[in-house]
């Protein structure tokens, strides 16, 4: 069920990293309905430039308060204008949209692999999965400034430390926070160690067994690398894809990708906005 809320108010807007903002809006309908991996389509003002709505991944919800949280990086005119919104300003929001993560699992060991802004929606996912599964997270970013503060266990809205119901390993490319390197390299070490029955990564002591499922969200090169590892180690993986989109509701065919439905040989086309943004990695034809 999707809602159109033309008068969702901004609760708060905070700078939470290098050009990274966290926006909280009040929209009880969307907060109530949203599932991890879904997105919302935002419009602010009536200007023809920027013309299109902006799709933002839903990073978290506070259902009791009716709040929906997004994180985004300022990359152009649209996100610049979005970052200038203040508490009390109004947004026109359609959501929740798209097909989110499949979370109907129980008693599994699951791994979350988040890159940069892709970390935030996985925290929303992790909280849900952790109710019935063992969750271990790998958070990667180029540097500390590009790591969403939430990933460090800091709740910027309350200033309190967040106690995640799962363990997490932070990795930065420049070593400014956590371990140094690529998150995919750390993941590989863990998978290789699991396969040999040894422990490689801090925080993994509690569940030394193999992962049953993986979930990834982040830049495409990271997703491609994780998909390859998942294939090598034969672990089912769900990925959340990004795409430019215009309508967000399956009409314009601007976000089409090539893929293959699970268990079918025939190639097909998916709409990222409607069939995704979350897919099983094996459904995505990465090179096409």
């Amino acid at each position: 069920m999707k809602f159109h809320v033309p008068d969702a108010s901004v609760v708060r807007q905070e700078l939470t990293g290098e050009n990274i903002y966290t926006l909280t809006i009040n929209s009880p309908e969307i907060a109530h309905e949203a599932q991890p991996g879904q997105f919302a389509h935002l419009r602010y003002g009536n200007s023809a430039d920027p013309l299109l709505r902006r799709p933002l991944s839903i990073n978290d919800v506070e259902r009791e308060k009716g709040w929906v949280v997004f994180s985004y990086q300022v990359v152009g005119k649209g996100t610049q204008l979005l970052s200038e919104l203040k508490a009390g300003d109004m947004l026109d929001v359609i959501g929740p949209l798209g097909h989110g993560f499949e979370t109907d699992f129980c008693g599994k060991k699951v791994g979350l692999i988040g890159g940069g802004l892709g970390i935030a929606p996985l925290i929303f996912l992790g909280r849900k999965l952790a109710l019935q599964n063992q969750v271990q997270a790998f958070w990667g970013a180029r540097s500390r400034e590009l790591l969403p503060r939430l990933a460090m266990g800091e709740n910027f809205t309350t200033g309190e430390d967040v106690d995640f119901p799962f363990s997490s390993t932070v990795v930065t490319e420049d070593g400014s926070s956590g371990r140094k390197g690529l998150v995919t390299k750390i993941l590989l070490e863990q998978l290789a160690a699991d396969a040999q029955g040894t422990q490689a990564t801090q925080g993994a002591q509690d569940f030394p067994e193999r992962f049953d499922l993986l979930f990834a969200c982040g830049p495409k090169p990271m997703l491609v690398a994780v998909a390859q590892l998942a294939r090598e180690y034969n672990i089912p993986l769900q990925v959340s894809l990004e795409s430019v989109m215009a309508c967000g509701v399956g009409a314009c065919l601007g976000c089409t990708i090539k893929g293959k439905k699970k268990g079918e040989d025939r190639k097909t086309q998916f709409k990222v906005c409607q069939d995704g943004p979350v897919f099983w990695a094996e459904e995505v034809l990465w090179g096409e």
Partner: protein
Amino acid sequence: MSNRTERDNNPNNKNDDCFVNHNKEVYNKEIKPRVRMDKGVDLSVELAGIKLKNPVMTASGTFSFGEAYTDFFPLESLGAIVVKGVTLEPRAGNSTPRLGETPAGLLNSIGLENPGVEAVLKKYLPPLGGYNLPVIVNIAGNTIEEYGEVAVRLSASPVVKGLEVNISCPNVREGGMAFGSHPEMAAKVVRMVKENTDLPVIVKLSPNVTDIGEMAVAVEDAGADVLSLINTLLGMAIDIHKRKPVLGNIMGGLSGPAVKPIGVRMVWQVAEKVQIPIIGMGGIMTAADALEYIMAGATAVAVGTGQFVNPYCCVEIVKGLEEYCFKYGVERISDLKGAAQRGAK
């Protein structure tokens, strides 16, 4: 998402009350007419025998087969719907990225992605038969014969009330604009479609020509019943950080408010030259935009990109047209057709 299809395809559910729309102002605003209007405003128009309850249509390729927007408003509040361009065989469309935003505009290079005429007849058109609303299907082909073949097959469907011949898509190598930029070729396509259907034939013209009037006259002479204009303008954008074109297909069609003055100008020029009705389109976002097209000479209007930005665009335009007519004491929207042509004299 699993219940989407079921809900979308069920006409009885189109006004889903779980769908929240707070935009009450648009729907409940009380209008005080400047002059007394005993009969109310007559928004109906006619396009070569196709009766529309109001002049607002969807532009092909922007409204899927209707299913994407049934959650937002009852389809029957539209004058007519024009569905996605259909070809004989399924088409995968162009490589990605297919979209690029420009100031007040949108570049696209979708490339006529569609499931092919058979799937359209079997799967996509039947649900539309449940609505009291003319359904017009946009058709395209690689060859003149393909246009004829698609026309024959679609004409057998009781759901289809008109065909819109696409000789103006800038995003396909064969057919499309290649047919729409030579008057003789365009006329051949139109004659072929006319020979293969009894339905009204609408011809969608490309703005990427030197003389739009010449094209319009050529297709009118070939038997076109209605003209649609404009299709998108060929354009491109470059990503200066990646140092390559934004679109995977390099060039694409520009739409959105940026192209409206060109569309209005072309409708004006064509209206001076042909007798058949015109569907005006290009950058329509509001009732004011629609009125410009109507006053330039269009009988009806179509909304495309505006729909992506504001899913209620069409409904708000219908309301806005009614308000305008009340305000100025216009009894029939059709009285405004070509008003600016008369005003300029």
